[in-house]
């Protein structure tokens, strides 16, 4: 069993669906971090089978909308003095702004992009979103 030491002060993002850890890692720009970060792929999970985990040994601002967009079952634990000081409950965002892009080649956002790129939740179960401009429906992070 691979062991990653616990952190003193920072954030643990757990229960990330396997395969999405790297996307989250890149979105949070953790490749540029000058503090310790662990990205764990395919950890064993009783609930999920396999999961990804990110441990960040620093306090950083996190866009919880993006996490909720990937999966609202992701757990975020804020760590202080080596123990969990706060658990953040995620929700599936009803509107997401400037996180995903529309893939419809007929959408105005394919040629002009100086305005907010907004999507609205269509179906919580299917995890589908509708583009504000062309109404195209996308599933940004398929389950």
């Amino acid at each position, binding site marked *: 069993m691979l062991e990653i030491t616990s952190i003193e002060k920072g954030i643990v993002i757990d229960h990330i669906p396997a395969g999405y850890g790297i996307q989250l890692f890149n979105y949070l720009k953790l490749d540029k971090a000058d503090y310790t970060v662990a990205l764990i792929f395919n950890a064993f999970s009783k609930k999920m089978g396999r999961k990804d985990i990110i441990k960040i040994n620093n306090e950083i601002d996190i866009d919880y909308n993006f996490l909720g967009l990937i999966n609202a079952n992701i757990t975020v634990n804020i760590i202080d003095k080596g123990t969990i000081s706060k658990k953040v409950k995620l929700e599936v965002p009803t509107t997401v702004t400037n996180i995903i892009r529309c893939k*419809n*080649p*007929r*959408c*105005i*956002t*394919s*040629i*002009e992009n*100086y*305005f907010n790129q907004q999507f609205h939740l*269509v*179906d919580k179960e299917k995890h589908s979103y*509708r*583009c*504000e*401009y*062309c*109404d*195209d*429906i996308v599933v940004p992070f398929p389950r």
Partner: protein
Amino acid sequence: MLKGRSLIDPSDFTREEFREIFDLAHQIIENPEKFNKSCEGKILATLFYEPSTRTRFSFEAAMLRLGGTFIGFSEPNSSSTAKGENIADTIRTIECYADIAVMRHPKEGAPKVADQYITMPLINAGDGGHQHPTQTLTDILTIERLKGGVENKTYGFCGDLKFGRTVHSLIKFLSNYEGVKFILISPEELRVPEYIREEIIKKKNIPFEEVEKMEPYMGELDFLYMTRVQKERFFNEEDYVRLKDRFILDNEKMKHAKPDTYILHPLPRVNEISLEVDCDPRAQYFAQAKNGMYVRMALILKLLGLK
């Protein structure tokens, strides 16, 4: 209150607000002279980034018949768009010169973007394969004049239901009314987009069928809305050629329709309705085109807050 508002999507106005527009359109048809000075001193800007005959002419004719005038372009190469200007800058500039604007654009959502940057009323005159709300006003006015109202009727839509923006707008509008049923006739590849099926038709529990043959359903319909398979919406010419002649309405097929089943078409037509059908009194697409001018007159008046 419609004064100062924009019409980008059929869901922008309530049923009551649409009622105001249709009531005024009926009044204009009865007595057009009464309104021939209503827009004196007002300027309509027509921004057509995509070719159009009926829609542009009907807006321009509508403004002229109201005593106003118009400025604009009928293809983007004759505007600053050719120099790379974005929509936001173009519309903000036009707002300096005009009182109200109309925009047609090949990209879906373009009028919605433009509307975020101005305070004058903006009318979506068709955005890609997405929406065409003033064609819907035209269609509804025609339906009202033929059958008195839109409720409790079966509507057939035939042809390109995927990219047919007039179909999307009309379905969106009709879905707010009781007793409507849709028969959606198209090849599998050209069925209505998912957001229309899931978000509008299914969510509002409207009975509908998606079918690939016209004849068996002709006898059920109160209106048959024919559409052209639009070459300009296809990225692949082969797909267009394969699908364009799939549905052709002719006198033989009209025999299956009821004596009061009316045929509508947003025009232009290519060959999806045979010329022989034009002589059938149930063919109402040219009357529809005329109604388009009257209902656009009513819309302009309402958005400018004029009488």
